[in-house]
């Protein structure tokens, strides 16, 4: 491996044992990345701690041999260098954005998606759901839930399953992550608790 030109190695203070050449680097990009990982693992700093800055180099070195592996990139701490305040605001925005939510229905093998953002109220929502799953009198469900075969529930931001229609429309829209249309017979006391049968 060629050493760089300036002959700096003569003046180099060696802190390792004589003959220890761990520090050699090559100019080529991919070798550099391997060099990262060699030194990192030799100091046994392999760690899964997300917050460890060292592990970010480790991850890059070990996994990004070809530049285009998207899964790995998002694990590098503090990169791209967007300040944490800005990141926080972007995340808030992402969660606030009212968009499409998935809807599933008992007995129906496929999932559908509806755009809550463009819906203006519970009645409208019921109409949309009816159209999606065939006329099943869902509108009635929302008006007088007691008498119907189906109940509509939704999962909120905290992961709890709630009955659709209990809270003001705006509040529901903002906290709804997904919807389920379930047969009433599946369980009555689902209320505010997460019921494992829905998972």
């Amino acid at each position: 491996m060629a050493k760089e030109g300036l002959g700096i190695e003569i003046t180099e203070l060696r802190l390792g044992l004589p003959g220890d050449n761990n520090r050699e680097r090559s100019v080529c990009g991919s070798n550099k990345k391997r060099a990262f990982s060699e030194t990192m693992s030799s100091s046994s700093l392999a760690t899964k701690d997300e917050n460890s800055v060292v592990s970010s180099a480790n991850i890059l070195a070990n996994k990004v041999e070809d530049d285009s592996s998207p899964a790995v990139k998002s694990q590098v701490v503090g990169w791209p260098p967007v300040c944490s305040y800005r990141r926080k605001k972007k995340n808030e925005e992402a969660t606030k954005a009212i968009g499409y939510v998935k809807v599933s229905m008992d007995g129906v093998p496929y999932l559908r998606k509806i755009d809550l953002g463009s819906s203006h109220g519970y009645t409208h929502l019921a109409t949309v759901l009816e159209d999606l799953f065939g006329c099943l009198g869902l509108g009635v469900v929302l008006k007088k839930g007691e008498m119907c075969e189906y109940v509509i529930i939704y999962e909120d931001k905290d992961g709890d399953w709630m009955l659709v229609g209990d809270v003001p429309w705006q509040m529901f829209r903002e906290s709804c992550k997904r919807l389920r249309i379930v047969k009433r017979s599946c369980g009555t006391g689902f209320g505010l608790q997460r019921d494992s049968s829905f998972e």
Partner: protein
Amino acid sequence: MGLPLPSKVLEHILSFIDSNEDRNSVSLVCKSWFDTERRTRKRVFVGNCYSVSPVTVSRRFPKMRSLTLKGKPHFADYNLVPDGWGGYAWPWIEVLAKKNPLLEEIRLKRMVITDECLEMIAASFKEFKALVLVSCEGFTTDGIAAIAATCRNLEVLELRECIVEDLGGDWLSYFPESLTSLVSLDFSCLDSEVKLSDLERLVSRSPNLKSLKLNRAVTLEGLESLLRRAPQLTDLGTGSFSAEFEPEMFSKLSKAFAECKQLKSLSGLWDVIPEYLPALYSVCPGLTSLNLSYATVRMPDLVGILRRCWKLQKLWVMDLIEDKGLQTVAMRCKDLRELRVFPSEPDLDDVSVALTEEGLVTVSRSCRKLESILYFCVQFTNAALVTISRYRPNIKCFRLCVIEPFAPDHITREPLDEGFRAIVEGCKDLRRLSVSGLLTDKAFEYIGKHAKKVRMLSIAFAGDSDLMLHHLLSGCEGLKKLEIRDCPFGDSALLEHAAKLETMRSLWMSSCFVSFGACKVLSQKLPKLNVEVIDEMYPPESRPENSPVERIYIYRTLAGPRLDMPEFVWTIHKNPEVGVSNLAIK
């Protein structure tokens, strides 16, 4: 030999000198000039709160009316500095409260300030006028309430990008009815809703109010009402610019904006809905500063605004502006001085936005006054960098972030060495530089050779060896702040150029290969530096001398070792018995 200048005359002359850099030079002339200067300095700036003790500063500048302090290193913005590292305001406030009770202004950046601190400020400085906290943390809205309630002559209260524990919107209601002196209020970083009626009354009784930056919780209706009460505003940060589109609201809003004939700066625009953007058209021609970096507006909705802002000097925007939008900027914003383009996807997911290097090239070509650039982009080319440098030799601040680490020129697949060479060769007044993309040691040879005036340099995922650091430390004469992460250099260049570090404010290195042993040597050699080893995983003494440490922060200081270090920060002073004697054996 002439007669010495009477100090009264010198004082009078100095009253015309505001720049602290000039005043620092003045104070080096001779003892009497030092003395006269220090007695007359009103605005004091301390770039690193640990570089000097509060007592020293307080004693030197008895007439101090304004203090600016900076705490954590810049890379703290990117979560590279662990919580609890330091940067506490308390020791400063404690001293100033006792010794400089006439203090009027405190400006802090990246510091930790508690409610207790804020209460002390409110209680101790009778003439207190201005509090500006930038990227600070450690306090709650209760602390803000204390300031609001007690500072009778308050003019400025600005919380910019702070992490505040938000206990509710009551703090605003603590401004007494008798407070009519407000000039600037910025609570954009707070989450809770404030009582609109209290805000309306505050605004109505503040005839000098020039700058108002609302938080997201303020609605469009609220905004409209506030604008009607403060048409004299020059700086406005809106709240949420979103609601179901209603023509009546739109026309009210347009009218309110039309009355704001002095508006120069506009920001906020959270959640903006394109249908409401035309309400801003009337103020666009007067704007010199526009911050759309939180507005998720896409093209082509942005064009309407951009083409009307022909006096714009500063534009902050997201990459949603795309190359097309930047073409509009190039055509219409001929006065542009500063451009910042932020990524809409802050994580390294696939960025699917049509923003390329061409956008920046277009603006650089047409906007003759452009001198400050921050640009996030998926990819770049040497050719683009060369073009930019040719058209804009006047660039003073160039920060390019190629989002993918190690990304080469996407056409030639070469490193970006030649491109950055053009930048540093061509832009002779460059003061601040951030590099990215695939870079070899050569790039740093060019930077060392040409970037003589660069004061601050940021580097990540670059270089091949110690040569890169050697070039920088031996070449960049004006270098004051160097921050490096994830670069493969070790100890040798650092130790060879150790003396350089005393001419700089600070050096940050993380995920590089500098060893604990080298840190000890540096500490021993240069007692005027604090060499901090920041390692959350392992106490550095528990590992071999030659193993690399996680992070190192080196800064010059007159104050000696600091006493508030958490356990994951090591300096030689912490363990003086762990000397460097075992190095001699090797």
